[in-house]
């Protein structure tokens, strides 16, 4: 059973009340949401629906915007790729910030230290993740301190990303070469063995990592059958009653 987009298991009741009431438009709640974001960063929880509410407050009251919180929200949204959260956050950013960020990918970075610069960097990471260029993703993070700073507030960022990538791999693969997976997960040697065995529960066999079969990676043909509901026949049944015999 899936969960609703607006559901977050760890959301405190006070936040829930604000989200469901008109206080979500009240600029005074900005502080509450900001603290909540900080808390999510610290204890590895995630609540996209609440974060979007904060971005909305920023959208309505640009003077309240805190760049650091905005980038933290975006970085948090990266940790749940490939879900649409990052795009949904981008949709609520001020158009000129995003436009500058996009422009910079062609004509050099915007002024350093600005929100546009941070957004442009996060977008690069997002693109790399979503196009499954995991090795490049790690190179980008390790290659420039700016990137490291952007995700510094997110506790356990690297570990979360590794697990997310492992999930994608487990959906698509039954076996994968060790060197490929090493570069995707950015861990090598005994650490790699440890991660793959202990956390993922996979087995390493020479230069090949074996992933147990699951529902997603077995690639079995199926026949989709039509599901027929009784309601579809409602009109016919009604008709049968109405028609004099």
């Amino acid at each position, binding site marked *: 059973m899936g969960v609703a*987009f607006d559901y977050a298991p760890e959301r405190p009741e006070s936040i829930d009340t604000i989200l469901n009431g008109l206080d979500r438009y009240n600029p005074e709640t900005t502080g509450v949401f900001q603290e909540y974001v900080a808390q999510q960063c610290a204890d590895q929880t995630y609540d996209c629906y609440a974060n979007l509410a904060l971005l909305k407050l920023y959208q309505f009251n640009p003077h309240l915007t805190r760049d650091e919180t905005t980038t933290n929200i975006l970085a948090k949204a990266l940790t749940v790729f490939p879900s649409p959260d990052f795009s949904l956050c981008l949709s609520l950013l001020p158009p000129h910030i995003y436009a500058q960020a996009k422009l910079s990918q062609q004509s050099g970075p915007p002024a350093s230290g600005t929100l546009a610069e941070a957004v442009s960097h996060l977008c690069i990471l997002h693109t790399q993740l979503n196009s499954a260029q995991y090795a490049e993703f790690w190179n980008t993070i390790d290659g420039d301190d700016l990137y490291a700073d952007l995700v510094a507030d997110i506790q356990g960022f690297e570990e979360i990303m590794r697990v997310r990538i492992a999930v994608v791999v487990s959906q698509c693969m039954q076996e994968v070469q060790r060197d490929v997976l090493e570069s995707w997960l950015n861990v090598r040697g005994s650490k790699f063995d440890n991660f793959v065995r202990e956390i993922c529960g996979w087995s390493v066999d020479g230069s090949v990592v074996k992933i147990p079969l699951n529902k997603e990676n077995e690639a079995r043909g199926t026949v989709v059958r039509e599901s027929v509901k009784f309601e579809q026949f409602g009109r016919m049944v009604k008709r049968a009653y109405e028609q004099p015999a």
Partner: protein
Amino acid sequence: MSVRRAPTYQQAAPERPADDDSDAEEEALANDYKEQVGYQDGQGYDLDRSGSLGGGPQDLQAQLQAAATPLEYGATIEAKTQSYDSYCNLFHFILNSEGPVDIEVPSYYWAWDVIDEFIYQFNSFCSYRQRIAFQQSTTSVNEEEVSVLRDNPNTWGCYSVLNVLYSLIQRSQISEQLAARKRGEDPAPYAGEYGSRPLYQMLGYFSVIGLLRVHCLLGDFSLALKTLDDIELNKKAMFARVMAANFTTYYYVGFSYMMMHRYADALRMFNHILIYVSRTKNFQKGAQYDSISKQNDQMYALVAICVAFYPTRLDDTIHTALREKYGEQLTRMQRGGPESLPIFEELFRAACPKFISPTPPDFENPQHNIDPVEHQLAVFMEEVKNNMYSPTVRSYLKLYTTMDLTKLAGFLEVDADTLRNWLLVNKQRSRQVRHSEGGLLEGDIVNSADLDYAMQGDLIHVAEAKVGRRLVDWYLRNLARAY
């Protein structure tokens, strides 16, 4: 959308000073933070209300009529401001009189027309203001207009529009009523003094739909869908009785789903309403139908985009119409690759709502006033770009049951690593959240593709999901013919 017909705009309410910021209801939303958004409200309505609303029921009827009547095309800025003021007067009167206002509702679709027109004018005013602010440096614009807009940042303010909608919803206790109906109870005990009257009930109800629309226009797609939690999307819903409302609701719900990357759900919405339109168009020859025919084309464009993302079998009537209207574009989008990007852009631009920015434009920095449509387009195109090689990959995989990665990479003229990435991307994209029951934001992750594969090292195993014949629809249709 109501029909934009010739001018019959009547200004029932007298002019009010332009600097008086109008805010329909003070109590609920605005109080705490007016200063922060630059409200200078101070003088409430009670000061100048006597003049505008003292005319008795007849005057009010005229105002109700006016509120549902579109502004003429190219109305002056004064007319736009005046129109805003009279909406505020009207809503203020309805919401803040002592006890419920006791008047007959002109017609069952009147409430929809009012809310629709209110949001339409808000939407077009914001776009217009944005455009003026953006152009002021490049082309010669009317300096006077710029200064009027600059001096009245709160005309058609986003907070006041939201305030009106939320207040109407609260006053009518429509959420409570709808929730009761959903549980199968009688909504009457939950309606309260206001909500039991048709005027409030309908205004409240259509305000919910209005909120869906405004949230979507502001780019908050998840909140837009959340707004409809209490409304059940089916043929029995109240909005389904007003064609334009029915159409608008499905358009915005479908669009929001699309922006949340839930293409299957978006298609379900578009499909439902397009089939409905095509089946009923013979009975709807009048103005109501004309007004939606443009939106109808927009929706087909969105269907084309969604189908390109999520290849699926459409209903026959929809499929034929889609081929007729966007056949060539669809083929090119389904082929994927960089050449498909301009088509996506073109269709998105033609079919998206006119997004707005909630804050007044920055007249000091014209270059900051990027059109919000471009913003949402750019966000959406990221997703398109990310997916553009999926059709190619799929088309090749369909031909094989097992395939060597390097060999396929050779066919596609890319290196093995790139192909591996493409395969991962396509696999992730074929897993979509799809709604099954409950609120619109709920759903399960399902495999939406007709093709599934897994990699064993460099060997790709491909499996196809075959769709069994769909007999029920065919059977029912032919049965209906035999009646």
